[in-house]
């Protein structure tokens, strides 16, 4: 029971974090980075 409550609390915390991140515009920030070729990832510099 204690474990189940911990899981539920962590999932609620996770959802709150996702919501807060979305509110702060982090999804758009991720999108901005992800739609351009990342020179570092590709090994260009």
């Amino acid at each position, binding site marked *: *029971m204690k*474990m*189940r409550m*911990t*899981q539920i609390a*962590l*999932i609620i*915390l*996770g*959802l*709150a*974090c*996702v*919501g*807060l*991140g*979305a509110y*702060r515009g*982090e*999804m*758009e*920030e*991720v*999108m901005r*980075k*992800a*739609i*351009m*070729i*990342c020179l*570092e*990832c*590709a*090994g*260009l*510099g």
Partner: protein
Amino acid sequence: MDNGRKRKLVQAAAALLMNGNLPGFFQGRIYQGGLKKFCAPGLNCYSCPGALGACPIGSLQALAANPRTLVSFYVCGFLLITGVLTGRFLCGFLCPFGLAQDLLYKIPLKKWRRKRVFRWLAWGKYIALAVFVAGVPAGLALAGEISVPVFCKYICPAGTLGAGIPLAMANESIRGALGWLFAWKLAVLALVILLSMKLFRPFCRFLCPLGALLSLFNRVSLLRIKTDGARCDSCGKCRNACRVEAPHPDHRECVRCGACAAGCPKRAMRWSIKQDRQKQ
């Protein structure tokens, strides 16, 4: 169908779903649609021409470059939810780079197993997470310097395999811009490929920061591999079947591949989301 085959099918389907922009591989261009807002459930470089989502580790570093979003609530929340739901199931069943290592491990060579040094090397992934993903990019941003995604730039072999090589093959301007960094990343990838033929999932076990993050949830995740104490006769075959040498399925090193459950002659281990006390 046995566990290994089922797992390969799920892994292949996940890799295809995460990299569904197949024309991108021929055009040397990446997908730029709205799905890129969402994190992919695995180490899948967002500069891979096929990638439909964003790599959570790349996103963490990209957001750490901005002092306003030093710690990304969005990405951390995503990892928290996936970690609590499944633990390292993502590593075992969904990560495309995990699939690549699994296939390399199938090459029939004498394997390295049960070496004490592996236990020490396993801490490397936590160092990679703390230093290269979080520490250096955030430190540079806080110091007012231009932040660098150190892990992606100098280490990530998934980026070289999924983004660097396909883009260089299909895009002439990228091919012309390759230099020492690409050579370094190719060397890292070559090392990981060679090691993957000799030991199971070296990158996941020793270097992957995503695995490091998800490993923190193995003990509390909803989806677990449970042992039926009434059936288990402690023969130890599950431990011998484990290729990451985890002492039990809740251990941080377990990638949830299910080899222990498949190797149990008494069928005492099973996937479950139920809560109950169990014998390990």
